């Protein structure tokens, strides 16, 4: 069996990518399983999706804990404690990262990882072909299909299955097919991912006995009110608003409009973005009457 795990942010299309791969493998005649995980988080938050491919009926369910291939939608997720894309990876794993940086640069961020690490700027390829960020799912789904050894024809058939269900225009669909061919050609230079010899599904952990706790502990109640900033939703951000102070008229508009309360005002009433929390919706950027915010691609 091959186990492929996709990591992205809600809205980046990694559920679709996992389905493109699933459909392609299904078209090729394999037994297939694909599923996304639903957390509390909405669009923007780290999420994961899973595809399993085998020759025989698949007797596994739920999350993939020991992946053969991990696909990461952007490199800011690589070290994200909520996403943990490298969890369960080992020397036999392959990790494919969508990034503008090269392997050496990425390896520095994850020194403990010993497996294969592949990287390419799929966003640039996708934008060049389709002019739509949403096509990242096509690029990564097809790249994964190529990496697990599926043919171009099956990959395109899988993509078509997904495209028929989308509300895209005909032109966009065609552009996505173009993109698929480009990405497939590029990914063909990589050696395919191979099945593992040992079939362990996960490490085993010792069991414990759950014992009685008093009611203050035993209910889903929270006494530490106002503790949500500990979650650090700043890790959702792909782009960050950066204030160019000289342009700011201190009009308060961005402070009032930020849905997240991620902007406060300093003593001189200049806005201060809390980058630990700002989700990067860029509403403040759009609303500022003097265009005092610039937008920077997030690097972590």
């Amino acid at each position: 069996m091959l186990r492929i795990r996709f990591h992205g942010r809600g809205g980046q299309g990694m559920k679709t990518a996992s389905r493109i791969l699933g459909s392609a493998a299904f078209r090729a005649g394999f037994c297939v399983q694909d599923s996304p995980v639903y957390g509390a988080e909405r669009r923007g938050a780290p999420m994961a999706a899973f595809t399993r491919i085998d020759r025989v009926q698949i007797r596994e369910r739920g999350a993939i804990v020991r992946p053969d291939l991990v696909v990461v939608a952007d490199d800011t997720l690589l070290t994200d404690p909520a996403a943990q894309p490298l969890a369960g990876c080992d020397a036999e794993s392959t990790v494919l990262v969508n990034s503008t940086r090269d392997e050496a640069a990425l390896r520095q961020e994850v020194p403990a990882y010993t497996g294969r690490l592949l990287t390419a700027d799929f966003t640039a390829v996708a934008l060049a072909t389709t002019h739509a960020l949403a096509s990242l799912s096509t690029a990564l789904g097809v790249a994964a299909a190529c990496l697990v050894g599926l043919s171009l024809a099956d990959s395109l058939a899988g993509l078509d299955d997904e495209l028929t269900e989308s509300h895209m225009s005909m032109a966009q669909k065609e552009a996505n097919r173009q993109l698929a061919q480009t990405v497939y050609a590029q990914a063909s230079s990589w050696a395919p991912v191979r099945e593992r010899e040992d079939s362990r599904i996960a490490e085993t952990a010792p069991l414990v006995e759950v014992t009685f706790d008093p009611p203050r502990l035993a209910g889903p109640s929270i006494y530490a009110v106002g503790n949500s900033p500990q979650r650090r939703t700043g890790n959702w951000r792909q782009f960050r608003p950066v204030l160019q102070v000289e342009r700011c008229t201190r009009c308060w508009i961005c402070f009032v409009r930020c849905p997240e309360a991620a902007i406060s005002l300093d003593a001189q009433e200049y806005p201060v973005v809390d980058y630990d929390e700002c989700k990067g919706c860029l509403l403040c950027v759009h609303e500022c009457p003097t265009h005092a915010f610039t937008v920077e691609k997030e690097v972590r």
Partner: protein
Amino acid sequence: MTQRTLLTGNAAAAWGARLADVDYIPAFPITPQTEIIELLAQWATDGTIAGRFVTMDSEHSMLTAAGAAAATGARVFTATSSQGLLYGFEVLYTIAGWRVPLVLVNVSRALASPITLEADHNDILSARDSGFLQIHTETCQEILDTVLMAYRLAEDQRVMLPVLVNLDGFTLSFTREPVELPAAAAVSEFLPPYQPHHAFIRGDRPMAQGAAVLGGAAYSYFRYQQHLAQEKALAVYEEIAAEFAARFGRYYGLVEPFQLDDAEYVLVMSNAFATKGKAMVQHWRARGVKAGLLRLRVFRPFPAAAIAAALAGRKAVAVIDQNLAPGLGGITYQEIAAALYDRQERPPLVSVIGGLGGKDISQGEFEAVLVALQQAAAGERVPGPWLLYTKPEQERMRTLLQIAGKEVQA
């Protein structure tokens, strides 16, 4: 000062709330519970009780208001029956999940369809997995006493779960019996005011209650804690029952053994019809048959050990379920069979369904059960679930079908 008076089961329940000095009573009427809320409405209006009475727009709202008030820190009482309990069903799980105490009286009534009025226990038993504790009562006195004990149980730090107190519609709700009313002062000593340390809504102590939980590990922990608290409640209940007996002179165990000591043939029953079963036991004893009865009282937590100990080694046991799980059989039968499974001396069990929709269980039907018990003791298999139904009842039913224009075979 203690006072003896004639009260219906409904009035006894209302008196329980009154003596418990409850703060809040959200209500919604349903036959046969109405008298409970009517009395409380009157008492709240004329200042007899300090608690506030509010008529809500449905049982779903009523139970939400009740749970929310308990989560705020109030002592809450409310009551419903059958369709009403089911209408508010999701809220039962919600309240138990909040781990807040309150007492909800259910006046048992069979469930629609067909809609009907008289008692059986499918309503109350549907709530058996909700996290509420459940106590079933047989007499009007027991109703009042149980409401008081239920508050002690619910508000105990080792439990902190809501309690359902069950009484049968009509056979108890509208039946008057002599009831001893304990003195208010004695009750307040037994049941001091509720002081929440874990669930409250107030300006000086903000908290979030009922937060969403993601991930099965967190959910498993919280749900299992309800089970552990219920398990603890068995011992806590025994303490409370002993104290209640010491103060008020009436003892109520987890289960009630009736002439069980040397009994060979045992009926297992619950609620008001257990009274009829007891009469039969006495009748049989007079005939020299060593019969006895085990009345189920505390149903959640399920006192499996007490039940198994009471039944192990008997010649035969008949579980008379006044409920039916279609496609399975009697509900308490399943649970009792499971309680006995790991015992060496498992008695033969006969699964009997009787009293659905308030249908009487006549002396003749009890006699038939005794015959079945003797057959089972002799090694014969008695197939169950066995519905008690008499020939005249069947004939009458045929007539009704005919009148309704149906094709009845002669």
